[in-house]
């Protein structure tokens, strides 16, 4: 047997793949990352539009980049430069009575205090406290139940849970009870128990279901809201566009010694005696490695290794994974800055939300369930060129909109006409809050969930590779019995968002999987 070329091969240079590569390389392992596209970064890339305008291709803001990942990988250090600006959230209202959330506090767009600021504060205090508690679970492999409740291994893992239990107790009876009550509850009721239905409530509802196949009335959306609030709930704009984030992850991986090959597509994972041994590229090239990590969706990862390496139950579970994406992306090039009545220049550069009420958010999701196009979608827009003039120039601006409640499985399929209808619905919705904006548009780029899947391989175009629902988290993510990143053949690992703890640009799935691999003694 010849010596493998690499210690580890990573399939896919999404930010998690890069985080896994950097983590392994920093431990002195030789790593090769193989990326199908011409550039690394997955959903965190920039795209260049006519006239050299840089726009975030898919993701446009950082919400949850984990401080541990940032520190370990040195993101933001000279080695992997990354500069960000914290943005306030502005929840738009047709009557100009916009709500603003700045550092977790509510105010009105005209600077007056928000009448519900105190109630909002108290709710955010509780939710961020609970989110922080759950966040403890995100930096480790999830507890597994594989040995049954009595086995030693399980008990050690339960010790981690015991710490969580202790911290729960430490919160005091009142908060602990509230935590246990709301954990599996729905965002709609939680929000409206304390707030009037309006833009402030709508902003929370929108955050609770962002990227999810759910309306705020679905049980489990309080959990997704807490997931969103994992790092306090703020949003950061990367200077230089989202591509700067991809570049920082890439630089961190390279600086640690990892090799990155772009434009090379993996055809299958090589196995010897049910053990990962490397990969075969589409062009037939074989690359050998002691371990293989896959940044793809769970089902694709399974198919790369071959379904014969998995038991019938595992195959069935993969097939039944819920991963229907609901987020589309629309980039608009504008020949002048748009006008949002009631917003100061500073707020106009913020994270603009079109979610004027929780009922609006729920209604927006109704057609999604049946594969229909929403007439009034939930939108999260940002105009990066207002903060970062470098990306546009010449007085032009770029508006990046993540359009929610757009079905992956659109009735009739996603063709050019369907994308045109999506663009029209998006512009019509924006027009209500920024009259005249349509006339400023000189170019637009529309990516449906199906396009996002085609470009990045994310199953269903889903933000998290697999829905974050209570039935698909922790011990059952990506599936019961497969929660420890180990994925079928020995030495084969899942390192993408489909694994614990899930998506958003956190870097955790990649980092955790690499650490688990090292712990397992594969290398």
């Amino acid at each position, binding site marked *: 047997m010849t010596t493998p070329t690499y210690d580890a091969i990573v399939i896919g240079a999404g930010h998690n793949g890069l985080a896994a590569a950097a983590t392994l390389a920093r431990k002195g392992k030789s790593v090769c990352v193989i990326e199908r596209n011409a550039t690394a970064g997955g959903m965190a890339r920039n795209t260049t539009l006519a006239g050299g305008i840089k726009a975030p291709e898919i993701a446009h803001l950082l919400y949850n980049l984990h401080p541990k990942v940032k520190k370990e990988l040195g993101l933001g250090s000279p080695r992997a430069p990354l500069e960000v600006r914290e943005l306030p959230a502005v929840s738009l209202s047709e009557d100009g009575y916009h709500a603003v959330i700045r550092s977790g506090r509510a105010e009105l767009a005209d600077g007056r205090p928000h009448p519900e600021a105190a109630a909002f504060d108290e709710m955010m205090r509780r939710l961020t406290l609970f989110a922080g508690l759950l966040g403890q679970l995100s930096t480790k492999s999830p507890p597994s*139940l*594989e*040995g*049954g*409740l*009595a086995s030693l291994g399980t008990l050690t893992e339960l010790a981690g849970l015991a710490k969580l239990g202790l911290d729960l*107790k430490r919160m005091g*009876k*009142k908060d*602990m*009870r*509230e935590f*246990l*009550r*709301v*954990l*599996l*509850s*729905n965002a709609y*009721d939680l929000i409206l*128990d304390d707030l009037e239905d309006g833009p402030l409530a709508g902003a929370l509802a929108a955050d609770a279901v962002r990227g999810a196949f*759910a309306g705020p*009335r*679905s*049980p*489990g959306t309080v959990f997704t809201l807490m997931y969103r609030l994992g790092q306090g709930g703020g949003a950061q704009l990367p200077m230089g566009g989202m591509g700067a984030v991809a570049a920082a992850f890439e630089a961190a991986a390279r600086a640690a010694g990892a090799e990155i090959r772009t434009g090379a597509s993996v055809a299958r994972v090589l196995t010897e005696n049910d053990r990962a041994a490397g990969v075969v590229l589409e062009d037939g090239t074989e690359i050998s490695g002691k371990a293989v990590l896959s940044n793809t969706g769970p089902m694709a990862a399974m198919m790369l290794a071959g379904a014969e390496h998995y038991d019938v*139950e595992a195959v*069935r579970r993969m097939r*039944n994974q*819920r991963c229907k994406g609901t987020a589309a992306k629309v980039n608009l090039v504008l020949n002048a800055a748009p006008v949002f009545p009631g917003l100061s220049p500073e707020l106009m550069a913020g994270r603009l939300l079109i979610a004027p009420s929780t009922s609006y958010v*729920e209604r927006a999701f*109704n057609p999604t*369930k*049946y594969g229909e196009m929403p007439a009034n979608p939930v939108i999260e827009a940002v105009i990066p060129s207002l903060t970062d003039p470098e990306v546009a120039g010449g007085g032009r601006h770029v508006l990046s909109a993540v359009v929610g409640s757009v079905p992956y499985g659109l009735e009739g399929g996603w063709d050019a006409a369907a994308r045109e209808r999506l663009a029209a619905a998006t512009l019509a919705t924006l027009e209500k809050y920024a009259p005249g904006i349509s006339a400023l548009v000189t170019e637009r780029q529309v990516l449906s969930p199906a396009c996002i899947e085609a470009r990045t391989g994310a199953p269903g175009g889903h933000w998290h590779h697999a829905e974050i*629902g*209570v*039935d*698909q988290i922790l*011990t*059952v993510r990506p599936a*019961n*019995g497969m929660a420890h990143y180990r994925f079928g053949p020995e030495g084969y690992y899942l390192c993408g968002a489909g694994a614990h703890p899930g998506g958003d640009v956190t870097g955790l799935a990649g980092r955790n999987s690499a650490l688990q691999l090292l712990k397992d003694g594969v290398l």
Partner: protein
Amino acid sequence: MGQHDRYDAIVAGAGHNGLTAACYLAKAGLKVLVVEKNDWIGGAAVSRSLHEGWTYSNCSYVCSLLRREIVRDLELPKYGLQVIPYEGGASFSRDGDYFAYMSDHDALRREISRHSAHDADAYDRFSQTVIRQCRFIRPFLLRNAPDPTSLKPRDIGELLFLIRQAHGLGKKELGETLRFWSMSIGDFLDEHFENDLIKAHIAGAGIIGTGLGVYSPGTAYVLLHHYMGDVDGAIGAWGFARGGMGAISNALGACFEEAGGTIVTGSGVDRFLVDNGKVTGVALDNGDEYHAPIVASNMDVKRTFLQHTGQQHLPGDFVKAVKRFKIRGSSGKLNIALDALPEFPAAPKGAPFLRGDLHCAESLNELERAYDDWKEGRWSQNPYFDMLIPSQIDPTMAPPGKHMMTVFVQYAPYDLEVGGVRAGTNWNGQTRGAFADCVFDKLEQACPDIRSKTVHAEIRTPWDIEQEVGLTEGNIFQGELTFDQLLFNRPVPGYAQYDTPIDGMYIVGSSAHPGGGVMAAPGANAAREILRNIGRSGNMTGYAA
């Protein structure tokens, strides 16, 4: 006040849970009074004669969850309770076909195969999972929900019991259980089956009585809630109480009176009397006062504490928690007196499954759309219904040759939207008529001659159910069955063991663990807690001892 007005315990409300608690307390030797606002007993387990010669089970209409331990302890058959199981059921499609459910395994397999060979295999896997989950949950129904914040030996003991049960599932099943409990019935069925009609037929049990859609997480649990009962030991079977659901309440009432208890009907509780944080009795609407150191409310938690208890006696946090308790009504009912048995052209003449539960839902999306209507304050334009003709099995329900049909309709809102305003009072003769028409239109899909055979129909909306029975917003479970309102969260975290902030006052209705469905478990569990708290546990009878 004379001595005769003093009791050991008073139960407010003669629903089946109030009566069950009263029976256990009286059998333990307490002098017990039950007060009831209506002129009849039974709450929502009641038989009423609203059209001459016909008997309507005008609220709850079928029986399965009633705990057999309680039936045995209270010897209910001795007092006239007889539950007759029915077998089968069917869903009719618009194209003139149907899917029939039969309890005979081979017959069912043939019927499923007629629609999909794949689903015939899937059904065995599906029912194994459901039965396994039922076995897991049943032991908890007659136990206290442990308080996870408490370090009392009893709470820790109950937690350990839960862990032991979970451990007994084995490693693989434990993961599946966690998943099952948090899934939607729609996703769960999509995983197993491919045929829309079969999926729709099964899905109904996941939404009945809830404010959730078939694709809302948590509805797989609601399915379980409807599957975990039994009739004569047959798990998952449902039956008719002979003489209507009132037979259950009447048997409980007879048992109670034989044990020396007193029932006063015709005047409801105006307020609970509280002195120095301790309950002392009740004052009725008619001015009568009765006194006892123990008072148990069979009313739902909202009605008990927001309408009939002085707010000065309650901690602010508790009142807030009661206010946010979700108790949205989502179902209506039609009780129909029929001149003759309607024709079901799709079904073979005299098919036995026509004696079971009949539906016309064709797909999960159709059910989900029905839910979308309800969210907006409308009744479902294409409603789901659970229709039965009990008089085919129980001839006491209608005059000879005539029949009685009960149609449970999902969804109907409590606060109906008319012209932009949502209010219960929007339910009037006109809106009720339009609601009934909508249901009749869909019934015609299964039995086209239904209108011509109808001699009388009682239309019940959530608003009517609240007005008559007293269930807030007409919610049939006295509070929604979502996780934030189950186990130690039901009805209020910290007060999930039938106790309340007022000393001596208890909650015995299905607002408490384990919830509604004519189980009688909350009533029995509450009686056990009461007797334990007053040091009379030695007097307990049956399962409670």
